[in-house]
């Protein structure tokens, strides 16, 4: 690594960042030789300041980023779980706003929470809300603009969707669980949900979509025409409720423009 001669009597005292990093994330690893107290002696407790800083900083960042998960399992349990997570999935970039993206997959197999099968879906919802919070700004359309198009023009039009807009399909009632914990909503019941995530002003929103709504909105996000999206939705869901779906899109400021091909 380093072929320069060091003057220490204990041999090579070069501490590489690879060695430092390994010992930092794994408390079982020995503290690298060459890190010392003021007397030049091995400094294990001093090294643990960095270990604690890293573990504390990252687990607190996760606690802030997943408030409902933390409420469901308790803050103390969540912090201990986060310390296991961060050793397997340290942040891949300095943008802590998106840290924890691998948590849903982690929760699928974390022994301590296997019995709480809905946790991964709640984690997916909290991640999506965070993405919406940091998404680019966009101005919603005036809802009357849709009604001003005749039927044929509407079918050909492509709706521009907000950068905050995405659809999450969950096996468990993640949105009902979120509402119960954050908004004093009713006791969560039911199963799978299709959830639209969007943003009104600066506030992320999550709303249930009617049956078929997920296929419709996903097609719109992909840039398909209104008619194509409607066709896809009704193919799977013959009783697809277009009006109810559009109400959700308008209420959550999900539509930001209408491209009308000539």
């Amino acid at each position: 690594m380093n072929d320069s001669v060091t003057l220490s009597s204990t041999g090579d005292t070069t501490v590489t960042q690879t060695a430092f990093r390994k010992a930092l994330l794994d408390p079982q690893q020995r503290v690298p030789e060459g890190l010392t107290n003021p007397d030049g002696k091995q400094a294990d407790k001093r090294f643990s300041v960095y270990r604690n800083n890293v573990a504390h900083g990252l687990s607190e960042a996760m606690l802030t980023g997943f408030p409902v998960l933390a409420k469901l399992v308790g803050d103390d349990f969540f912090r201990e779980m986060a310390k296991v997570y961060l050793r397997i999935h340290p942040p891949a970039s300095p943008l802590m706003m998106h840290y924890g993206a691998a948590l849903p997959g982690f929760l699928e197999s974390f022994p301590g929470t296997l019995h709480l099968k809905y946790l991964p879906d709640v984690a997916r919802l909290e991640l999506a809300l965070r993405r919406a919070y940091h998404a680019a700004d966009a101005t919603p359309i005036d809802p009357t603009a849709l009604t001003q198009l005749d039927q044929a023009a509407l079918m050909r039009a492509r709706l521009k969707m907000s950068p905050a807009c995405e659809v999450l399909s969950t096996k468990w009632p993640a949105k009902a669980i979120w509402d119960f914990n954050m908004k004093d909503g009713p006791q969560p019941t039911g199963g799978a949900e299709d959830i639209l995530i969007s943003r009104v002003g600066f506030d992320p929103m999550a709303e249930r979509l009617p049956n078929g709504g997920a296929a419709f909105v996903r097609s719109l996000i992909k840039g398909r025409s209104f008619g194509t999206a409607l066709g896809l939705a009704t193919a799977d869901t013959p009783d697809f409720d277009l009006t109810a779906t559009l109400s959700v899109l308008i209420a959550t400021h999900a539509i930001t423009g209408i491209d009308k091909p000539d």
Partner: protein
Amino acid sequence: MLDIAHDNKLPNGAGVGYKSQHFNALLDDPGTVCWLEIHAENYMGDGGRPLAQLRHLAERFPISAHGVGLSIGGETRLDPEHLARLKTLIDWLNPAMFSEHLAWSTHDGAFLNDLLPLPYTSDTLTRITTHINEVQDHLGRKMLLENPSSYLAFAESTWSEPDFLREVARRTGCGLLLDVNNVFVSATNLEFDPRAYIDAYPLDLVEEFHLAGHDEDADELGRKLLIDSHGKPVDEPVWALFDHIIARAGARPALVEWDNDVPEWDVLEAEAARATRHMKPAPAAVVSA
């Protein structure tokens, strides 16, 4: 780029590390606070409330953008994606100042979310110089480099920290950010005299001060170990060290950092007011040479 009416320089007065919970109270009554510092990485999203608040604040206050994620001391090359994100923010915000740390935080693709220590060797010096030159070239502006808080020493170090910082600045043309609490924390932990550090430190290159609170712990031998926690008022000996520095260097933009257990605005503003008072000594005060 933002359209800013003020002269976009950090004044020789007190600033605070901006916390979003203070947005309304700060705009309502900033007290003696005349500039703000933001952590650059918190404003690298695409939009939303953080950037909207920042736009609002930047119209009223000069802003110092403080990076916590470049890993300037990293053994590997700077992350080009992160450098590009930083340039996007700096080009848009046009802050009065940009600063980063004499530390590393990323290695083998993992960002460790802490400012990790470096040995002061000729190898480190070469690497830091290369990285700072790259940052300054990329951003098209001068940056400030901040001294770290240390909990341990490297047996391999061959430079003192003040000499190391002076040499980095000489080779790169960067300025220095003197964190007074970090000097006190390191001096306690590594058992050196903080005033001797200041006497050896190139105060003429300092363009900004940091002040913050620390926690007290002990190592396994029972020796005092201070932790740079940013969760308390500035400690009295740190104010005394600040006075020593001001007597030598004069006033500079001075920041109060409070990142954990963040208090109400009034409490933070009072700390800033104290920093302001410390930089305006009585007219009769004798300034040492």
